[in-house]
Each structure stands twice: as C-alpha cells, then as structure tokens.
C-alpha cells in the first residue's frame, strides 16, 4: 500500500471513499464497463485499500468516458469518476510525458469527430 499516492489521490479527487456502501450501482450504470479491467466500484475500494499502483498501470484509467453517470447515480454521493480521474492524473504525472501532442491531431481527424472529443482527448491523454 502506497500511503503517499493514496493521500494524493484522495486530495486531488476530493472524494471520501469511506462513504461507499459497496452497492455496485456505479458499475451497474457504467457504459464503459466491458472496456475496463477495473470497474468504478473497484476504483473506490482499491483506493480505500491504498492499492493505487495497480490502478495506475491498468488501461482502465483511459477507458473511463468521464460521462459522470456513476457520479449522477451513486446513492451515497461518492463520485467514483473523480477517483478515476485522480488516479489517471497520478499516472500521467509520474510518467512525466504527454500521451498526445498537437502535431498528432491532423492525422486523427475525420469528418464525424466532434470537436469536443479532441478537447476531451487532451484532457485525458495530456498533463
């Protein structure tokens, strides 16, 4: 268990993981569930246990759509998406490099891609 990392994630997410009652509604609602190795309720529980490294090394942090469905529907107001985001930030910070740079963008563009997606992609894959 990595105490510093846990502190960092708790602080940057602002989430009190102890409020979780382990109902699994976040994972019941998550549209990205099948893409994720660890699911929203697991993020909450693993952060509580301090098992942050495992989450940081999983691609689950990039599979979350930030749709906030879990935040909207959690009966205890835990806001799991904020935990996912905080773990992702911790990972990106540690790697010290961006996963996306503006020069790559023109190659990726296609007609159907909404502009919002580019903004979101930068949010997710860059510091």
């Amino acid at each position, binding site marked *: 268990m990595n105490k510093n990392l846990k502190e960092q994630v708790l602080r940057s997410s602002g989430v009190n993981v102890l409020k979780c009652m382990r109902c699994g509604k976040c994972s019941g609602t998550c549209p990205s569930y099948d893409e994720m190795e660890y699911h929203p309720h697991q993020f909450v529980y693993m952060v509580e246990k301090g098992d942050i490294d495992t989450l940081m090394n999983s691609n689950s942090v990039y599979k979350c759509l930030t749709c906030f469905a879990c935040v909207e529907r959690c*009966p205890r107001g835990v806001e799991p998406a904020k935990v996912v985001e905080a773990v992702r930030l911790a990972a990106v910070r540690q790697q010290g490099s961006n996963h996306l740079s503006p020069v790559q963008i023109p190659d990726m563009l296609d007609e159907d891609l909404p502009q919002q997606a580019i903004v979101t992609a930068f949010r997710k894959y860059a510091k």
Partner: protein
Amino acid sequence: MQRIGVFVCHCGTNIAATVDVKAVAEALSHEPGVVISQDYQYMCSESGQNLVKDAIKEHKLTGVVVCSCSPRMHENTFRKAAASVGLNPYLVEIANIREQCSWIHKDIATATDKAVILGKAAVAKVHLNAPLTAGESPVAKRALVIGGGIAGIQTALDIAEAGFDVDIVEKKSTIGGKMAQIDKTFPTLDCAACILTPKMVEASQNEHITIHSFSEVSEVKGFVGNFTVTIKKKARYVDEVKCTGCGACVEKCPMKKVPNEFNEGLDNRHAVYIPFAQAVPKVATIDPNYCMMLKNGKCGICSKVCTAGAIDYKQQDRFIEQKYGAIIVATGFNPINLDKYDEFAYNQCPDVVTSLELERLMNAAGPNGGTLLRPSDKTHPHTIVFVQCVGSRCDDEKGKPYCSKICCMYTAKHAMLIREKYPDTEVYVFYIDVRTPGKNFDEFYRRAVEQYNVHYIKGMVGKVTPKSDGKIDVQASDLLSNEQLHINADMVVLAAAIEPDKTARPLATMLTTQMDTNDFFTEAHPKLRPVESATAGIFLSGACQGPKDIPETVAQASAAAAKAIGLLVKNSITCNPCVAHSDELLCNGCSSCEKVCPYGAITYQDKEFRMPDRTTAIRRVASVNPAVCQGCGACTVACPSGAMDLNGFSNSQIMAEVDAICK
C-alpha cells in the same frame, strides 16, 4: 432564620473520582444558613435518603441542597424523601455536580472548585424557595387515535377492551391503511385481508369505538388529560347514517374514468365510490373533482338510484369538538415518489412498477383479479427483475438516509409468491445487503433462494431501458462474478423507500410533539420510552414513528394503548406547581406574553384597581391558567414590565444563583 442542610453524593466513583467531595461539603458548611453539610457514597440509596430525612427532623431544616447527579435523575427521589418527613418538597434543590461537573472535567482541583460554586448557587437559591402545592386536574376518560391503519385499529381495540371510549380519525373514506392493499403477508404468507378485515369489523361494532372516516384533526388545544380537539368531517356528499353501502350509485355512475387510488392508479373507479368490498365504514363517497353534478350540476343519477335517499349534493364540511385525555398518533407511511429516479424509467414504462403496485397486481381484488399480467399489454411476464433499496440508504437529496426495513422481506415474499404461482417465470433480485433480522425472517428469505430458486444477485441495477419490442433492458452489476449484466426483462419491480405521511409534520406542530429530520415522530426515549412522545399525553403507534412491519406495528400499537390506558384510569393527574403568574400591579396588558406562550395558557381580564389617588381604574391584566401552563418560562422573558414570574424559578432566585456564581 433559614436552616439549610447540604448533602454531597460520591455517586460511587462517578463524582468522587474527579471531585473532592469532602472538601465540597466542608466549603459549603460555611455558607450562610447552612447548619449541616455531609457527604455520602450513594445519597439516592435507602440509607442515603435516611441520612437526609434524619437531618431534616433533627436539625429542623427549612431547606435542602443535594449535590449529586442531574435533577432529571433523582430530584423526585429527594423531593419525596423530604415530603415523607414533613418538609415541602419544593424546598429541595439539586446541584448537578455529575453531568455538569465530574463527567466533563479531568482536573480534580478545577472540578472541586466548580462543584463548590454550583453548590453555593443552589444554597443561594434555596434561601428564596417558597413552599409550593401541586394542584390536580381531571382526566377526560376518552382517547383519540389519529390514523386508522392496522396501528390505529389495534390501539383503539385495546383501549376499548379496557372499557374506555375511543375515537378513530381516518382521513381516507375507509380504515385499514396500507395493510388493506397488501395481498399476502410475510413471514407466514396468510392473506392480509383475512386477518385485517375481521379487526376492521370488530372496531366498527365495538360500542366504545367511534370511527370518523374521511375526517381530519383541525385543531388541538389543552394538555395531558384535558385535550380539546376539533375534528373536521369532510363533505362526502353521502349521508353516512342513511347509506347502506349497497353500491347501486357506484354501478350507475356514468363517470368511470377516475384513477383508483386503492389500486395505486392501475385501474379506474367511478366518481362515486366505495374503495373496496370490505371497506369500513361501508359508505359511498362522491369525489367532487370528478362528479359532474357537483362540477356543473348535470347528472344527479346517483341520487335517483339511491333508495335510501342518502345522496346529499349540498353536504358541507362539518366540525365537531370533543375532549380527550390521551391522543395516539398512528398516521403511518407512504412509499416515496420515484419521479426523480430517471435511471429506473418508472415514469416512462408502465411495466416498471413499485412493490405496492405489485401487491395490487397480484391481489384477487386488484385490477386483474389476481392474475399477474403486465400493465402495458396484459400479457404474462416471464422474466421479472426486483430492485431493492430504491431511494433507501441514500446520501443525496432524492432519497432517504435510512433503511426502510420492510422491503427485503416483502421482496422475498413477492419473489416467492411469483415462483410458486408461475414456475415458468425467472425472478431476479438485486440486493446490496439482505436484511432479515426477525423471528423466522432469514429462514423465509433462504426459502426463496433454496426452495423457489429465486436468483439473488449481489449488485445494483444502474439503468433500466424500455425497448421498442416491449421488453425492458436491465443493466446491472453482479459484484460477485465481477461482470455487468443485461437482463431482457418483462417487468421491473422497485422496492421504493418509505416515508412518513405528508400530513404528519403539520399534525406534529398542532400537537407540539417532536419529529426527527425525516419527519418520523420522536419517542420520549429511544430505548426506555419508545411509545410515548416527549409531550405528556401524546403516544406513538406504528410506522409514523419509524419503518415497521405488521408484527412490530401491532406490538407497538398495543404498547401505546397500555400507556394511554395507564393515563385514562386516573381520575386526576398532579399538575406541575412551577407555573407562571403575573403581578397584576406591574402588568400593563401589552400582550407580549400571550404571543410567546406555546400552550395558550395566558388570557387577559379587565379588572378594577384602587389607584394611589383613591380613584378606581379598570385595567387589562394578564392571567395564567395554571392547569395549562407548562412552566416553560417564555413569558417571563418576554414581559417588558417584569410582571411575569415563574414559581420555583423566580427572577430573584435566578439572580441569586448568578450572584453566587460570580462572587
């Protein structure tokens, strides 16, 4: 000259461990008027009390100060001891050196100093104590039960059994409450109607019970033993006495499109209706929102077909006033509104129903005659998903923070009944925890799993999506197998959280009783006085005090009845003599006190006074009804002329205490 005795208690080590009790006794022995100052291990014990009694006799004491625990614990004990040897009990004062001193301090020196100061204040006060005599007020030998569910019915039956008259005020047109809507009951699966309706009939036939159906309480005045209540009998446009309940009017009424609340809106009723066949009283009621005669004077068919001549379109609300000794609140509960839970599609899809709706769908007297059919297309559902904890245990503004307590059990019941009657139906129950504490409850739930093969899945439904083919996609997590499920269901049943009736809050205000933040009535003590409210003479019965199933409701209902009977058997009750009184020479009749008195104890009188110049003048002055005054003291603070004072807590006594503390 005052002769005061001081008695300092060790309370075992409760006080003595933090307060030097010998030093306190010694310090107080030098206070003016103190003739004896002693300490003892347990002052409340029999030998401790004897110590006090002997000292009163031997030293001819005129006042007693006991330095001990809170007056709430033992003030009465020491007052009784004093009275037994001829000292007026109101000449005893308690200095609380336990809760307000030893329990909250760690340092012995500080605690001892504070105990001395508290003792000095009590001595200063007792110097000014006057002997008081408690008056008596008579007890009206009649009880009022508000709410006619199973709780109210049971309470009324028990009180009537003891020989007292009791009135039930029920806001709906029949008594019975939620239990009348339920099909079968856990944990024994006997039919609700078969066990409830005999009790309803018993209540209606009991000579001591009067049922005011379609009625509400509109005003409550008075106090324990002596409440005056105004009951509003709402116009039902049918003469209750003449109506025989034959139903001819209902049959002929052309207005047939009124949502039937008894069936939770799953079918329609007529504008004139009798909620169900076993309704008590079995009297028709006309719904003014739909009756064409009442709305625009066109129709009048029911009055033509009623051979009893009971229809009365001109009926008005009536008000009756009655005196009661005790009031029992039994206003019950309702499932919460699910409008805000979009994810469960309750408002989008008729095949997503609440558990109470399912009770009606399965009931032989329900909209489908007891055959379980989907509300949308009246076909038999083959896959049914139950969702528990909908709106319960929530930390958001949509739901309730508490566990609704009854839904785990009724969901197991529903699942089992469906599997029993329709073995070709697959039943899934999504749960967070299965909570089944209660006699034979867990066995009941296990039967649903082991014997009836109901699929219990640990997880929660996240999203319910009605599909174009009429099926319903239920997306949920299965936490034990760590997967997300999609169930292609025909029906979804939501175990909605329960909440107190919306009328409970205004009723609590009328009764000056307390509620918690969820609007459940608060009991006087959560462990030791569970069926009394903190307001004397008001008792609590059933789900209005907290979520409860029927066995618990009935137990509490009988307990509340026992408490009420304990009050009603008394011919009179002792009043608190520590009440307010006004100095008429100082009172200027400004009405400030009347406005703040929560009990309505203050009235004004025009009185003749001899003025200093020998003329007479008529002045308006306040007077307090000592039987109504509860001694709260609000008026003494509000009075700008210092005319209001409280017996036992006079302004001069309180100032003397403050002086003693500040010296």
